[in-house]
């Protein structure tokens, strides 16, 4: 390679990295702004400045109570759930090398839903017990999926197909349980199935935060390998990657993230599906834009919850109703625009 070519490549790479960085910083700022706005709104409105002051420990007694005790747990749960879903979606889509793959579509969340609906409808459980069932469902589904897909290693394609199969069973069990239940209980199950942040408290935040802290080092380590894995199994083998080990590790992380998020807020739809492609298109990153995906997931959930809580007057909708409406049009806009400027895809 001539020195000139090296320079051109270096310049292009630098431009992309700058863009990634700028996008990430802007996203972080927007997420924080949305977060503060959501803390300031409610029955008792607090100016955003006071919210920021309170967050950094400088508010008076009343605002401190309202912000830190009443509103913060819900907002934080939303942020963490969104981040978890965004990251989980990014990992799934890269491992499967398929933009349609996400924990929603591959069946992990369907497994969680079937278990949770069983807990709500048949065992009449509520609260933490339902969450426990959801986690159990997600982990069991993922475990079955992986074991059944194993045959001299796991090919992504087989993993996806088996995921679809298991997901189909779980979905039909869910709809069957819904038709068997009394309509009021089925309605309650529907709200859980939609995904809601109503009444979330510090215990939810704590479990999410612990998961993040535990998983973070593994994530940092494995995401690096994800880039190689994305080149296809053969190439990755050729480059000396232990493909099966890395893939298993990544899937475990993605499943745990999706499971914990689902347990905390129900299977909020479409966040995991919609965040990674938007992040990719914004950063123009060739690989999975992990940080941007996480931030976008958080943003979609935070914005959706803002809309769900305050845009319909007295009626508080579950957040999952809104995520589709918030995320989808933007993705469609990006799809249309990206192609007009010529970068296909």
């Amino acid at each position, binding site marked *: 390679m001539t020195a000139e070519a090296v320079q051109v490549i270096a310049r292009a790479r630098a431009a992309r990295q700058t863009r990634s960085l700028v996008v990430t910083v802007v996203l972080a700022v927007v997420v924080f702004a949305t977060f503060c706005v959501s803390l300031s709104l409610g029955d008792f409105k607090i100016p955003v400045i006071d919210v920021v002051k309170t967050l950094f420990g400088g508010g008076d007694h009343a605002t401190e109570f309202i912000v830190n005790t009443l509103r913060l747990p819900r907002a934080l749960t939303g942020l963490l759930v969104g981040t978890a879903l965004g990251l989980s979606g990014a990992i799934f889509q890269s491992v499967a090398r398929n933009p349609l793959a996400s924990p929603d579509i591959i069946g992990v969340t369907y497994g969680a839903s079937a278990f949770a609906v069983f807990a709500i409808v048949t065992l009449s459980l509520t609260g933490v017990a339902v969450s426990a069932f959801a986690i159990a469902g997600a982990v069991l589904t993922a475990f079955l999926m992986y074991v059944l897909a194993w045959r001299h290693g796991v090919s992504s394609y087989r993993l996806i197909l088996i995921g679809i199969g298991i997901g189909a069973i779980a979905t039909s069990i869910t709809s069957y349980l819904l038709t068997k239940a009394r309509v009021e209980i089925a309605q309650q199950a529907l709200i859980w199935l939609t995904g809601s942040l109503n009444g979330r408290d510090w215990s939810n935040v704590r479990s999410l935060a612990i998961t993040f802290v535990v998983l973070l080092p593994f994530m940092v380590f494995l995401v690096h390998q994800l880039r190689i894995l994305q080149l296809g199994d053969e190439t990755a083998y050729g480059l000396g990657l232990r493909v099966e080990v890395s893939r298993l590790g990544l899937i475990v992380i993605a499943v745990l993230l999706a499971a914990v998020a689902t347990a905390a807020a129900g299977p909020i739809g479409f966040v995991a599906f919609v965040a990674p492609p938007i992040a990719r298109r914004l950063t123009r990153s060739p690989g999975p834009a992990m940080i941007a995906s996480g931030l976008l997931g958080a943003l979609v959930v935070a914005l959706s919850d803002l809309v769900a809580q305050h845009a319909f007057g007295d009626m508080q909708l579950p957040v999952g*109703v809104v995520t589709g409406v918030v995320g989808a049009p933007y993705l469609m806009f990006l799809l249309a625009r990206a192609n007009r400027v010529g970068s296909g895809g």
Partner: protein
Amino acid sequence: MPPPSAVASADPDLAAAPARPQRRARRTTLVLGLIGCLVLLILVMLLSIAIGSKQIPLSTVIDALRHYNESNTDHVIVRSLRVPRTLIGLMVGAALGLSGALMQGVTRNPLADPGILGVNGGAALFVVGGIYWFGLSTLTAYVWLAFAGAAAASVAVYFLGSLGREGATPVKLALAGAALTAMLGSLTTALLIGDVDTFDQFRFWSVGSFAGRGSDVAAQVAPFILVGVVLSLFCGRVLNAMSLGDDVAKSLGQRVGLARLFVAVVVVLLCGAATAAAGPIGFIGLTIPHVARLVTGPDYRWILPYSMLLAPILLLGSDVIGRVVALPGELQVGVVTAILGAPFFIILVRRRKLADL
């Protein structure tokens, strides 16, 4: 993507492809397989007419078909309940199998099911809207609503996916479809959460069932499905060319954009009508083409007819079982299909070398 070892020991059929006699033998096997499927399908149809929640002796069933007597209740059951139901199962199955194969071919994505064009999402939203705003509750009304919703949604998806200078690329179509489905799903849930009565009716439609569909529903959807089936059997060659990628297809003289539009229209006809008749049944359109592909290899001229026959076998078989296992009630066909079909599908996926898309 097969591991390296699988590439080395490639399919012997493939290695010997140029040899004429072998190819002819393969074709004979495939034709025989197709005939076998047809026989199986006819058997399942007969079972579906003969078996039901009310036990009717076989001789009476045959009598009802040959010398119909209006005053005999058993005859009426066979003629006005079981026969239309079987016909609907046949049509819905064929339509879902075909549209699934078409959709996976045109998007080149193994995860694409006919619903990915927004068909199910649109149909569901319109049905819910009809119940919520107009208080509709008859199946015949649902049929038109579902069909209108399916058509509207897929037009929107196709339009969104084809914005920009490259036109409707597979990835854009798939993403646009999934995104719009997400949006429609949100709107549907918003209506359902606000209103218990609507939800109460909707949950029975959305599970996917043939119960209570009479000859009127069959007559409503039959023309669409017939036209769709005929058109789709012409798509094999086009899909084969497109499966090589857009550029190769173009260089082979294929008008890619036009072909894609044509396939999309056929999918809407088929899947829209099927969803209208039986509610959203997800599993069949997604998996049956993969099963067909395991038998036939990647040639769409064979995948399409195999999908068309295999899907109704599974669907009608599940419907018969659903009617028998939960007497006196019945299990909805959508539930049984997945619970029966999915393990079988998983075994197949594990057993055979996968034909990649």
